[in-house]
């Protein structure tokens, strides 16, 4: 029972993802949605930090419909799980509460 962090801003334009990464604990999860899915690109700002957190046990997810809408399927960094809204709902129940980073 930890925190689910959601990030909906592009890390190329906003510092939102970095703020999330700073306070994310090893038991938390991160969900990228809307323009936040630009953070799945291997060269995105924060991509290295994201992979480091994944290695430490943090689960990272991205909404598949937001990935597809933006044509990013071929550009994804490894170990990011693509999910739909049903799984998003389930994730909020698997965590104790949700912090939305705008």
């Amino acid at each position, binding site marked *: 029972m*930890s*925190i689910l962090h959601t990030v909906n801003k592009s890390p190329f334009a906003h*510092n939102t993802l970095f*703020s999330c990464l*700073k*306070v*994310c*604990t090893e*038991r*938390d999860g991160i969900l990228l949605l809307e323009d936040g899915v630009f953070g799945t690109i291997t060269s995105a700002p924060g991509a290295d930090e994201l992979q480091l957190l994944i290695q430490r046990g943090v689960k990272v997810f991205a909404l598949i419909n937001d990935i597809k809408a933006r044509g990013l399927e071929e550009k994804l960094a490894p170990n990011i799980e693509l999910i739909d809204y049903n799984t998003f709902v389930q994730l909020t129940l698997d965590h*104790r*509460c*949700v*912090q*939305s*980073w*705008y």
Partner: protein
Amino acid sequence: MNKKMLLISRQAPYGKSTAREAIDIALAASVYDQDIGILFMDDGVFQLLKSQKSQNIDQKNISSILSALALYGIENIYVHQESLDARTIRTDELVVDDLQLLNNKDIGHLLNQQDQLLSF
């Protein structure tokens, strides 16, 4: 019923109405006798700066409202130390005296103690 709630305020004052409208939620929660804390982080720490003269841009003074948080029984005021440092803001430049400075790890821990998070 009582829940542990934390409002996380990360936006600068005045450029958008977010900072101002977030505070109103904290005040409402206190009126309803809920245990609410506020965490100021990122540009949100600018809200706490002294000597704001927002009448110059026809807006209400946010730091005045924040200086009254204690009157509303809102006692847990948290400030992200690294956000202050990045902006070269000292704690004696803030309108609130009684605050708790947190590092990144502290914040991760704080979030994990809450029942609900109100994110701004």
